[in-house]
């Protein structure tokens, strides 16, 4: 694999290109949208609505009703409605780097479809459930209880699509001969798959270690997931930074018949 940076441009000339004219600008914008998205998510889920850490699956009905009809939840759902479209952008960052790997495109497609399914089940469904409770007053407490269960189970218990996508991502890193991302990250990603499996009992248990707020199913998963999320973006940052410009999809000039930038120089 060609690892020379900006092979078609002299190094000094490449450094002089202003960042606004960098061919990686679009990729960098996508990349930096990710911390924005996750920070927004963090604020919405934790201090604003206290959806997270998850409330108890066996909360008393009055507590569930008070939560589902709270103003803070309404505000959180309003922000999520506007911002959830950023999720595909973050996945595009993964996919762009996966495209550079020497593995079969099936891995990339699996991640793509898995993340689409994951966003629908793990984000849209909870949004609708909590949003219904918050925006539409007048529901019976039993209905609100059902929406509460549905919302949390969709958010924490949506396993299959995430299992498949993380396994595809992890295996793609491990099998890649171009070394786009470090091998140890591939193994770390396999643990993501494991944590998804451990979350399966949330459908069965309503309290204790295997409830949706349990030590085994939630807290241990978070112990693995949160550092992984930080680390994977540091690795992706390095992968984008080290990507040769002539390897970019937009390296070819827009005018038909014109050679890629710097070709023949």
């Amino acid at each position: 694999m060609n690892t020379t940076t900006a092979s078609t441009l002299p190094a000094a000339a490449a450094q002089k290109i202003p960042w606004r004219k960098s061919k990686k600008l679009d990729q960098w914008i996508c990349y930096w949208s990710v911390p924005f998205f996750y920070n927004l998510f963090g604020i919405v889920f934790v201090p604003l609505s206290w959806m997270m850490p998850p409330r108890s699956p066996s909360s008393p009905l009055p507590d569930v009703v008070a939560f589902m009809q709270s103003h803070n939840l309404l505000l959180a759902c309003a922000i999520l409605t506007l911002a959830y479209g950023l999720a595909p952008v973050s996945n595009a960052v993964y996919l762009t780097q996966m495209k550079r790997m020497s593995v079969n495109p099936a891995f990339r497609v699996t991640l793509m479809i898995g993340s689409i399914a994951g966003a629908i089940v793990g984000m849209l469904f909870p949004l609708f459930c909590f949003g219904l409770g918050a925006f539409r007053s007048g529901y019976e407490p039993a209905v609100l209880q059902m929406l509460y269960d549905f919302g949390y189970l969709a958010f924490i218990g949506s396993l299959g699509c995430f299992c498949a996508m993380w396994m595809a991502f992890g295996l793609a890193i491990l099998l890649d001969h171009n070394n786009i991302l470090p091998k140890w990250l591939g193994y770390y990603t396999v643990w993501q798959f494991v944590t998804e499996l451990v979350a399966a009992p949330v459908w069965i248990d309503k309290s204790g270690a295997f409830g949706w707020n349990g030590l085994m199913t939630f807290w241990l998963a978070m112990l693995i997931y949160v550092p992984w999320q930080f680390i994977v973006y540091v690795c992706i940052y390095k992968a984008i930074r080290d990507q040769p410009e002539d390897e970019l999809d937009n390296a070819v000039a827009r005018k038909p018949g014109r050679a890629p930038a710097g070709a023949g120089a």
Partner: protein
Amino acid sequence: MTVADASAVVDRDTRTTVVTRSRHVPGEPSMWFFVIGDLFIFAIYFVLYVVYRQQQHALFLSSEQHLNQGIGAINTVVLLTSSLFVALGTQTARLGKARDAMRLFVFAAATGALFPILKLVEWLPELGAGLTPGHNLFFMFYYVMAGLHLCHVMLGLVIMCFVIRDLRISKAPDMKFIEAGATYWHMVDLLWLVLFALFYLMR
């Protein structure tokens, strides 16, 4: 974690086998990262299991009686035997005897494949008797942790198939890959020994 071994390298130009003695960390460092991390994660599960077991000792003790100790013991022997074949296969591959190593890895994979079959034989009657994960906390722990281990076994069998493929088609076996696969399989073995002790033997 270094090994002193006789490693053989097939020189592609001269078709000669050069046997060298060296001390090195077997496999790939990234695999060790995975193994140590995986052991750490399982260690947390084990600690949590013991803590909950202490809290509900009578329940856990009575539930353990429903497990099939015989199949558990056979599975232990199965995995240990498979691990032995893996160790012998790795040693043989280091000496450059790819054919013999492949044969040993086939034995290892065949023995290892018995594990999921025996698990099925063990679990079907238990599930049929209503001893499902929802039965009580013990069975939840049991199915989750044994299920996770089973996933590791399945992944190990897949890795073993790739090792066999590598030994079959390549003139110079990729020792790093073979050692990484062997390391992983030994970890699977080690995890089972702890699981067996915790779920089947602990009183």
